[in-house]
């Protein structure tokens, strides 16, 4: 359900974009999904196929780039991949680190047929 509403949001934005690129045929859309975005990627893929079927977006392919969570340490500025939710700074041991990547839910690009 949630994933379906994301798909319609994406397609609405592509409809808008299409107005600015008259005559262009969009063949693929690239989404960027962070691991903290609260989105199930399989669900999203499945929902995408269900929604585009029998519409003018039927031939649009979907590519998803999954973005891992990264943290930044306010004490020593170290940036690190927070694997298995381990958010403590590996360099200096600071526990209160800040999310810098992994919350994305973005349309990165669309590919256009020439």
């Amino acid at each position: 359900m949630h994933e379906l509403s994301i798909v319609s949001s994406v397609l609405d934005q592509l409809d808008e974009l299409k107005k600015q690129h008259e005559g262009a045929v969009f063949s693929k859309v690239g989404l960027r999904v962070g691991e903290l975005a609260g989105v199930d990627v399989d669900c999203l893929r499945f929902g995408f196929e269900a929604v585009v079927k029998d519409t003018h977006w039927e031939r649009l392919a979907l590519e998803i780039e999954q973005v891992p969570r990264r943290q930044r340490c306010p004490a020593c500025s170290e940036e690190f991949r927070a694997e298995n939710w381990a958010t403590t700074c590996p360099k200096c041991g600071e526990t209160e680190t800040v999310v810098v990547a992994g919350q994305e839910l973005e349309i990165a690009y669309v590919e256009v047929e020439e």
Partner: protein
Amino acid sequence: MSQIVVEKKVLNENQKIALELREKFRAHKILVINIVSSPGSGKTTLLEQTLERMDKSKRVALLTGDLQTENDARRLAQWGFPVKQIITGGTCHLDAKMIERHLADWPLENIDVLIIENVGNLVCPTGYDLGEHFKIVMLSVTEGEDKPLKYPSIFVKSELMILSKVDLLPYVPFDAEVAKSNARMVHPGIEIIETSNKGDGMEQWMKWLEEKLAAVKSGELISI
């Protein structure tokens, strides 16, 4: 083949409305909280207890989301504060548009605190900004200690975790310390209050609300 770089957030429409809502809340100095949990964790129960204890001079208003029924609004209405049910008709989260629509005929200048009870779901509400100052995630002791690890997003985005139904701790195989440390693992610095319908934690919770409201009124707390 050529590529158009788009670089746009997906929930655009929602974010636009959430921004407008936030602007209104700021203009009227309203503290807005958005409570999220699985179904049955005890959100409505906590709110009933909150309203029972609430100083009647505080102008509290509530919006409560449900897939189908009006039950929660009925439960909450008995305390004399304005309550509206938002029936989502199957949608598993509240979005900013629903909040905007249900606030349309309420005089915002007469509200100090707006409490939003989201639809019971730990995943979908995460991505929908409602213009709130704080998300609050509730986890009851009849669920698993590993929920913060399974659904990290909502724990990352919440200022406060309410660990509810602690009166049942003696009867369930739930290790509160493990649950709390899991929550802190995904969100270092998350505040935690333990509550139950027997009154546990209510003083601390009411104080939390009181302090946040004071900060909004003084202009110290502004959400962006």
